[in-house]
Structures are given as C-alpha cells and as structure tokens.
C-alpha cells in the first residue's frame, strides 16, 4: 500500500518533470523572441531586456534556472505585464476559476448520478427516455454553443442573470451550467449503464431474496458497485472542466486563469503560457492521484501494489 502510493508519487514527479521540460523547449522553439514586435526596438533596450530576463544565457542554463524556479514554486516574471509575476497572475485568477470549477464539479456529481439512477430504475419508461434525450443533447452540443445560447436567452432576453462577471451570486448560474452540461450528461449516461449492469448481477437477486428493503438493496449493493466507473472518469472530468474554462471564462468575461491563459497566448507571453500550463498539469495530476486513492476507499477489492 505505502509502496504503491510512493510509486504513484514518483511517477507523478517524473510526469511533471516531463511536462516542464516539454513546455520549456516547445516555448523556446517558437520563432522570434518574446520582445519581437512590429516596432523597431533600440538595440540597447533589447540588450537590457534580454539581460534582465536572462535570455542571453545558454539554453541549458535557462532550462536549469527554470527548473530551479519550478521546484521553489517560482514561475518567473511575466513578459508582457511589467512588474507582474506568473505566480501573481495565477493567484489572481485561481479563486474565480476554482469557485466556478468546484461548483461545476459538484453539479456534475449531484445531478449526473441521480439522473442516471432515475433512468436506470425506470428503464424504458418515460423518465429514462427523457434523461437519455437530455443526455444525448448534452453530449453532442459543444459547451460554447450551450453557453452562448444560455447567455442570449437568460441574460439578454429574460434578464434573469447578469451577462458577465461574478459580482452577483446569480452570475454563477450560466458559467457553471455551461461548464458542467456536457459532463452531467456524460455521467448520467455512464451511471445509467453501469447501474443497469449491476442490477443484472446475481447478488442483487440474492439481496432481494433475502428480503432486504428496496432502498437498502439500491444503496448498499447497487450504487456502491456501480460507482466505480464513475470515480474513474472524475480525473478526466476535472481536466476538462479546467480546459473548458478557457472558453467559458471568455464568453462570460470572468477574470479566471483560463482567460489569463488565452490572453497570454494572444499576447505571446511565453513565461505566462509555460507557468500556467505547468500549474494546470500539476493540479490535474494531484486530482488524478486523489481519484486513484478514492478507489481504495470505495472498492476494497482493489489492492494496489499486490499485483506486483
């Protein structure tokens, strides 16, 4: 068990290192320096800037310095926002992204699983059909389309919610809805098929034959076993909620990390791109790690490390 956790942590570090390296060299493969622009720059200013950001150093030294920075949790200065460090940009955007993202994740679990359960328990009757129709639409329509339509109908036409920003608590509705729509549908479909499969198992019949109550059968025997595939996708769900926030934050003008990321791409702010990518990757890896550990709690049959 401890061995398995250590092994996973080790793999995480290797992956993170691979990401830092890949990102670093990708960003340095971009033609043109970060200060190349249409305007001619005085060679002295150019030299001073290069010296300030250590762009004169040989590549391996820059790489070593950057690695050192990542280890000490310092992602360096932003190239485009004078006086701002990448850490500051992340610290500024994180609360917004985290609030919307966590709310969306809660929605995914709190709505997706019950919808799937309702559908499975009413197999081939109208609640099942209804849930499946909604879920099919939710999987097929891209989040940015859902977001814009919702924005037009609920904010512009009906005026129930503000069109942008999170100053008002009602401002959360649309971004969270647009962000979680796809995954609510996905989880609903997944938990439906997973529960249907579990309901067919022999031990469910046994439980019924023993005379257990319906609720007890469903929760203790049915749900717990069918939850495992749902927990499996929670890692990718988090990943997609994070990347999904690029578009959602742009549409609803939320000052989150996703918006900063897209902005830094259009601004060609290489240190910010690198830093935010690495930050995203780290968050994700921690999430996937937590999900894997959750398995152990939910499914005692899985014994990590025993397979070796």
């Amino acid at each position, binding site marked *: 068990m401890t061995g398995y956790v250590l092994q996973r942590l080790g*793999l995480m570090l290797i992956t993170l290192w691979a990401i830092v390296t890949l*990102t670093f060299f990708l*960003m340095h493969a971009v033609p043109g320096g970060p200060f190349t622009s249409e305007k001619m720059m005085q060679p002295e200013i150019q030299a001073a800037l290069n010296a300030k950001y250590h762009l004169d150093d040989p590549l391996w030294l820059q790489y070593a310095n950057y690695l050192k920075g990542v280890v000490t949790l310092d992602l360096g200065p932003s190239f485009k926002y004078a006086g701002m460090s990448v850490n500051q940009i992340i610290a500024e955007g994180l609360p917004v992204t985290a609030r919307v993202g966590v709310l969306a994740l809660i929605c995914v679990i709190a709505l997706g699983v019950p919808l799937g359960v309702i559908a499975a328990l009413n197999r081939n009757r109208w609640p099942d059909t209804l849930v499946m129709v909604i879920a099919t639409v939710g999987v097929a329509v891209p989040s*940015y*389309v859902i977001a814009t339509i919702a924005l037009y109908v609920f904010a512009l036409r009906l005026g129930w919610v503000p069109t942008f920003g999170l100053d008002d608590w009602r401002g959360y509705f649309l971004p969270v809805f647009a962000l979680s729509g796809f995954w609510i549908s996905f989880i609903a479909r997944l938990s439906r098929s997973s529960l249907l499969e579990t309901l067919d198992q022999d031990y469910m019949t046994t439980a019924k034959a023993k005379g257990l109550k319906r609720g007890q059968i469903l929760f203790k025997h049915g749900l717990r076993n069918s939850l495992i595939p749902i927990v499996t996708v929670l890692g990718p769900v988090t*990943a997609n909620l994070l990347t999904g926030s690029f578009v959602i934050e742009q549409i609803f003008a939320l000052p989150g990390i996703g918006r900063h990321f897209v902005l830094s791409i259009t601004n060609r702010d290489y240190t910010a791109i690198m830093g935010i*990518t690495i930050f995203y*990757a780290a968050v*994700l890896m921690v999430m996937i790690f937590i999900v894997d550990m959750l398995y152990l709690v939910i499914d005692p049959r899985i014994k990590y490390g025993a397979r070796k």
Partner: protein
Amino acid sequence: MSDIAPEMWEPVARDAAQAEYIAAPSLTYWQDVRQRLWKNRPAMIGLGFIIVLVLAAIFGPLFSPHNYYDQNLKFANIPPLFQTYEVDGTRFFFNSGNFNLYEVTPEGHVEGLLRSTKKDLIKKQQQFKFGDKLVMMDTAKQTLTLDGAPLEPTGWQWNRSNLFGTDQLGRDVLARQLYGARISLTVAFVATLVNFFIGVFYGGISGYLGGRVDMVMMRIVEIISTIPLTLYVILMMVVLNSGFFSVVLAIGTVYWVDMARIVRGQILTLKEQDYVAAARAMGASTGRILTRHLLPNTIGPILVTLTMLIPSAIFIESFMSFIGLGVTPPQASWGTLTSEAVETLRAYPYQLFFPAAAISLTMFAFNFLGDGLRDALDPRLRK
C-alpha cells in the same frame, strides 16, 4: 385442462435430420455486423447525415454562386428571412439591426440599399421618399410610419440572394458554412488518420514485442495520458502559428494514446493464438504477422475508436478556432463561424443558428454511428 383434444397428447415424430437443419442463413462476422448496424435506426440516420454532409462539403461550394471570402459591407448582416413592406410599387425590408432599408425584387433577391433623404439624428428619425409618399423610420422605437400612420408589412419573404443570409462583413453564410464544413471535416479526418497510424503502429509494436519494450512504451503512454492534452494542442498551435496545417498537425499528433492502448490490448491476447505460431513457424516476418494476421483481427475496436475520435477532433478544432487559435481568416471553420456569430449575438442572434446546428448535428451523427457500431461489433449483443 379437459378441453385439450386427446390427439394433442400424442408424441411428435422426431426427425434427426430436421434437428440438424440450419434455419437461418449462415453469416460471416461482417455480414452479421452489417445486418445489425443496418437495423439500428439512429446509427443509419447518423451515417446518412454524414454522407450528405461530406458530399455537401465537397460539391456544395461548386454550385454556390458566392464564395466564402468576398466581402460586401453594403449587404452586411442580411437575414435569411424577412418581413417585406411595399410603398408606391417599391418592395423593401427593414433591417432593424443596422437601420437600413433594402430593396427586394418580387422573387426575393436583395437589390440594394435605399438612400434616406433626410436624417434627423436628434429625433433619431430617417426619412425615405417613395414618389410622393414619405416613410419615416424611428430608429429608437424601431418602427416605420407612412405619412404618420404605422406601415403594415405585406408578408414574409425568403432571401433568395443569400439563402442563409450574410454575416457582419457581407459574406454569404451558406458558402462560408459549406467551406467551414470542408475545413472542419478535413481537419477531423486527416487528424484522425494520423492518430490512427501512430496509435496502431505504437500499440501494435508494444503489444507484439511485449516484455521490457512493452513496459517502457506503456509507461510513456501512461505519462502522456496524465498530461492534459488540450493544453498541448494549444502549445503546439502557439509554436506552429495558426493555420490549417498546424491544426491538423497539433490534433493529429496528440490523441493517439487511446488507440495505442486498445490495439496493444487486442494484440496481447491475439498473439498467443495458434495461427500466429503457425505463421511464425512458416517463417513469416514480424511485420508480416502484424499487418496480415494481427491487425486485421483488431479492426472492430479500432473502427469504434476511430468513429469516436472524429467527433472529438471536430470538437477540439472548433474549440481552438473559437478561442482564436484555429484556422486564419478569411478561412472559416465551424468554430470560427460560431465565434463570429457570438460577436453579433446581441443584434443578430439568428446568425448563431447555422454554425451551432451544423456542429451539433454532426456530433449527434457521429455519436449515434459510433454507438451503433459498438453495439453491432459486440458479438455478445447478438440475438
């Protein structure tokens, strides 16, 4: 019980030959798959839609009188359907988004802009003269009056010049839509093909060679699959600069991991089969065994993964284009078309309809087809 006739209790004559008779025609695996797919209505509708879409994308632009890049600001933001008015023999419609009156022919072709004779910016009114009649446009209330009385529309009219209307630069939406389908589908198909080759090659080698090579290759896959791939597509786009080939390259080189895993899993179980041993005993090379014996037998799961990869490639491409990292203007893809429509959402919300519908319907079609294929290829579901 008593009403059962006594002859019903007679034993039935048994015929050994009859018992061996095969009533249903014997089907090969693929015939069976085809039959089951054929019976799956959503999957067939999806397939039909995809075929129509591909044909429209290839041949549609050839029949269109417009091209996707010609701008005409005079005819910007014209809707596909409008209410016409008629004053003194002139037929026209009112575009409330940009306060213009356009003259329309009886067949529904948009002829040109009507010039206002007088603009009163303080009262927010414009005057239009038709012979001796005067039409007043109130730009604040968005109403038209004829000599003081409200002007009643004569009826609805489809736009015959531009069937889907025009966008904010006066480009034909239908032409752009068809061209966008071309780009989106090409990106999706080519990127999927690249992913397919990398994935099959990687997974095949890893599964066939096994042992240490397999372990190292699968560790690499494990590392790649924990990396958020959308981020890497974005980084690739930053390095390669926006454009059609960059999108294909970025999407094509990133999403092969699932394919590699599936192919490896299949190959691992297949390579222990006797026919592989037989082939090897006859002196077939590794490459020949892989391509002639092993890969054809993994085609089912590969096919399902492929049909699932295409919609996600379409989605990623439109996602990238939406945040401004996709194809460059004036080229259009469904993503750029959607983001252009979002810019004019407040005044012309209907412009969102066509790109949103196109991409959503395509996603539906591929999802249905993929689900249908998966069911058809699964022998356990055979009835």
